[in-house]
């Protein structure tokens, strides 16, 4: 018996011993051993454990900020601003910071794919093709079709790819590529350019020198958020506020809600949407009258009492603003997107520019300039207006587009649904997408031949506005491509023999050629190879001194045109104001840290909300987080309500940026897209009257969706702590 026990005990002990060994081994240093692979050959400029920095350009929006990317052992670690680049002088916005979450996004297209339109993105059901096959597909598409039936749709940035595709289209006789971006729609860029053409005879983007002005009147211009070149304008704002120790610039915002920009204003004047031109004209009239002398006809025609009632503004307010304008040394008036995206948008833009003329600030510090003409720019390029897109869609529908190449833009998401892009795609025989991410348009394509991410690719980008001088912001790969992607420029050059370039780099150098040896450069290079090296090293090329153009304004004040209230489309008790989410922009929804950033004014994260005045909501028995259906003539969306104390009672607002049905795991199925509510109404300049919709709302009984807010509902809105 004793032997039995001891033998059994032995077995037990052995087990215990083995377990002890396992535990100890598991905790010991051996468990932490990792493998480390040395370089075969040490890359140049790389040291173990030390970072390497590369200058490149931010591709998150079209502003063209310069970046310095910190890399370590082949990984991009951190984005920092390029302090030499005149656009951002070392600063970045949140979207620029989060660009690495695009580079390392788990939902990237990892190689060329042939797919069935509309099927979900899944590498198992998508057929991979080789790049040779891909190039052949592109070559066939270009060569086997009538050139007039080949169309290129590109993103908003005026970059090297746009130049290359323009040259290519020119060479093969295809129509010029179309650039589009939702940002340009929400900025009403076409209207601004058209107005400057009408007034100054030059189709250029005006540059508003707010840095040196002491009074800024802004009609819905969200220049601290997404408008034109937010980092540059934010710098201007900071200078306006604190740049001059003798005075602190005053800032008045006319807008129907307190946007992030309006939150920084000293005065926020919530005028009724659609009356911006009237208010501007009324201010003009009061200023001119106070100055004495002739009142220009545009302003004189305005009936002040009518303005007061239609704009929902007090006479004292108008007089006070007019007085400030009269007293200011350099007042400036800025027309923003929501003021121009109306049926009378062009009129508003012209009225506001005329008001600037009255303030006599054209070509003066703190006034209005025209952005400099850019290198490699023949005529003033601008992204397509919504009307031009609508015409293009008509062309697609009529079957005149056989092949559509899409790069850097997601029209299925960014265009209002009512324009019918989705239907029009059906009439296109072959859609080839060069998307980096599986966005909606890429999923509706026959092929996805993914381009490198912006941080993996070469290039340059013209800086349309925001700087005093002409800037060509340079891009270079900061890391080698993570996946089996290929530069679209290389694919196009390989597929078509129409252009005489071996590869992308050769094309870039051909474009640099004219810049070599110019005077007043940021660097001087004797020949093209040195130029290219410096271009990469400096993160671009630019002039050292200001090249701003003074508008040639002859008799601006003498022009006369009718100033009227805007017309609104549709029925409903509310004006509808869509605005671009300041944190997400138009394409940030797939970057998780951007989603996690609270909206500056509402602090909502990860979702879409509808802003509604608490009083209005109270009347309608709507509470926070109640889901409402917003119905316009064009469509309807559902979103939870945020009772926003700083919005007109007759207006509801919604951020644009969410509501994706694809675009990766962080974006898909999240929030709602206000673009679905926008109808086909354009202003005279062809921009969509996106702010000119009337909508009605229906409360969906019993449906609530808790919005994730950073702020405390108790501490900020006294929920549960009613005033005593």
């Amino acid at each position, binding site marked *: 018996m004793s032997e039995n026990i001891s033998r059994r005990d032995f077995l037990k002990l052995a087990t215990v011993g083995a377990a002890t060994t396992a535990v100890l081994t598991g905790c010991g240093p051996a468990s932490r051993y990792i493998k480390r692979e040395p370089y075969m050959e040490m890359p140049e400029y790389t040291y173990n454990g030390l970072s390497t920095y590369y200058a490149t350009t931010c591709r998150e929006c079209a502003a063209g900020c310069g970046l310095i990317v910190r890399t370590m052992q082949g990984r991009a670690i951190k984005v*920092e*601003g390029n302090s030499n680049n005149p656009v951002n002088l070392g600063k970045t916005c949140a979207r620029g910071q989060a660009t690495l979450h695009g580079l390392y996004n788990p939902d990237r297209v990892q190689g060329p794919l042939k797919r069935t339109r509309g099927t979900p993105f899944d590498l198992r059901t998508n057929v991979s093709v080789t790049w040779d096959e891909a190039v052949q597909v592109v070559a066939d598409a270009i060569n086997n079709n009538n050139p007039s039936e080949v169309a290129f749709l590109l993103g908003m940035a005026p970059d090297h790819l746009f130049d290359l595709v323009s040259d290519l289209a020119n060479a093969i006789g295809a129509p010029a590529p179309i650039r589009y971006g939702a940002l340009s729609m929400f900025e009403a860029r076409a209207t601004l350019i058209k107005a400057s053409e009408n007034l100054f005879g030059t189709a250029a983007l005006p540059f508003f020198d707010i840095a040196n002005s002491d009074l800024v009147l802004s009609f819905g211009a969200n220049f601290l958020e997404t408008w034109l070149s937010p980092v540059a304008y934010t710098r201007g704002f900071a200078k306006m506020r604190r740049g001059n120790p003798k005075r602190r610039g005053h800032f008045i915002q006319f807008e129907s809600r307190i946007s992030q920009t309006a939150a920084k204003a000293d005065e926020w004047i919530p005028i009724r949407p659609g009356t911006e031109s009237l208010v501007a004209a009324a201010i003009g009239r009061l200023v001119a009258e106070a100055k004495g002398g002739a009142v220009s006809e545009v302003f004189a025609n305005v009936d002040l009492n009518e303005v007061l009632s239609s704009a929902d503004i007090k006479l004292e307010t108008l007089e006070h603003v007019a007085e400030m304008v009269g007293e200011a040394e350099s007042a400036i008036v800025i027309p923003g997107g929501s003021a121009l995206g109306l049926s009378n948008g062009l009129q508003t833009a012209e009225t506001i520019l005329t008001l600037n003329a009255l303030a006599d600030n054209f070509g003066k510090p703190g006034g209005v300039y025209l952005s400099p003409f850019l290198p490699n720019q023949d005529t003033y390029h601008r992204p397509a207006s919504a009307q031009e897109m609508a015409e293009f869609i008509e062309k697609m529908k009529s079957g005149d587009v056989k092949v559509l190449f899409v790069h850097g833009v997601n029209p299925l998401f960014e265009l209002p649904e009512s324009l019918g892009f989705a239907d029009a795609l059906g009439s296109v025989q072959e859609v080839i997408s060069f998307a980096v991410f599986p966005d909606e348009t890429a999923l509706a394509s026959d092929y996805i031949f993914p381009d490198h991410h912006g941080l993996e690719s070469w290039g340059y980008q013209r800086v349309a506005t925001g700087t005093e001088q002409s800037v060509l912001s340079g891009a270079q790969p900061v890391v080698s491509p993570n996946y089996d992607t290929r530069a679209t420029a290389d694919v196009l050059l390989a597929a078509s023999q129409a252009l005489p370039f071996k590869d992308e780099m050769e094309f870039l150098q051909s474009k640099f050629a004219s810049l070599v040896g110019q005077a007043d450069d940021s660097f001087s290079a004797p020949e093209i190879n040195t130029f290219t090296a410096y271009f990469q090293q400096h993160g671009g090329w630019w002039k050292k001194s200001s090249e701003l153009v003074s508008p040639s304004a002859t008799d601006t004040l003498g022009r006369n045109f009718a100033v009227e209230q805007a017309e609104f489309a549709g029925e409903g008790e509310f004006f509808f104001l869509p605005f671009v989410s300041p944190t997400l922009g138009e394409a940030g929804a797939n970057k998780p840290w951007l989603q996690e950033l609270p909206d500056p004014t509402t*602090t909502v*994260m990860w979702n879409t909300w509808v802003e509604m005045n608490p009083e209005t909501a109270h009347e309608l028995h709507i509470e926070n987080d109640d889901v409402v259906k917003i119905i316009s003539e064009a469509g309807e969306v559902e979103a939870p309500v945020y009772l926003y104390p700083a919005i007109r009672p007759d207006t509801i607002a919604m951020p644009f940026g969410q509501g994706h049905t694809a675009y990766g795991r962080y974006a898909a199925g999240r929030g709602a897209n206000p673009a679905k509510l926008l109808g086909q109404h354009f202003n005279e300049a062809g921009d969509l009257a996106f702010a000119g919709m009337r909508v009605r709302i229906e409360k969906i009984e019993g449906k609530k969706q808790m919005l994730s807010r950073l702020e405390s509902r108790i501490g900020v809105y006294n929920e549960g702590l009613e005033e005593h």
Partner: protein
Amino acid sequence: MGIDLNLVGAKGAIAEEAEGKWGMVIDQDLCTGCQACVAACAMENNLSFVGEEDAGYGRTQHWIRIERFWEGAYPEVKATAFQPMLCQQCGHAPCEPVCPVFATPHSPAQEINLQVYNRCVGTRYCANNCPYQVRSFNWRDYHLEPFHANNVDGQLVYPLHNQFNPDVTVRRRGVMEKCTFCIQRIHQAEDKAKSEGREVHDGEFTTACAQACPANAITFGRMDDHESLVSQLAHQDRGIKHLEELNTLPRITYLKEG
């Protein structure tokens, strides 16, 4: 032996001595609330994003948050100045004495508050005791959620991990964290300066938030150098310190609007 000015809670002129080594000035007149600092901080310091539900429930990992309140009612409503709130690196920090394991000690060398992740056992007492409420706790291994991974041949691959800054520890669940004044950058700059036999000079480096801020609202630098920009700004009339009445000796000065 001098008196420990932090302990006696010096005010006024002697308090200048107690201003510490590193300091920050935030100009609320300039801050546009754009969140660039928040994003920059997240990218520099490997902060986790927590997703919609946890974010709304008060579990965000932001080391810096931008506060705004409302004043008045429509139409006279006004948003108060955006107020970036981050660890104030108090000279006399309430979080420090309460930690039972010295996981949040005061750095005598850098004169800032440290958070030693690997020492933290997660009592969360420091966070309770922080009057600024700027500490965030790792409620779970957010960055290791399988949701963020791609399945590559049966293995979970997290592409986002490529972005992690190797100079900053990636925190696991159960530990407290907070703004460090980008101590990794401080070390890097000091190390470089030392190897070159000099002191760190003003503006040689800055924190990630200050570096990103498009409005230049954040200034970081040596407070003990009275010539430095940050020190000059901090002594402006507009400067205030938050909850100064608690004698926490915060190292961050806020410049008020107007």
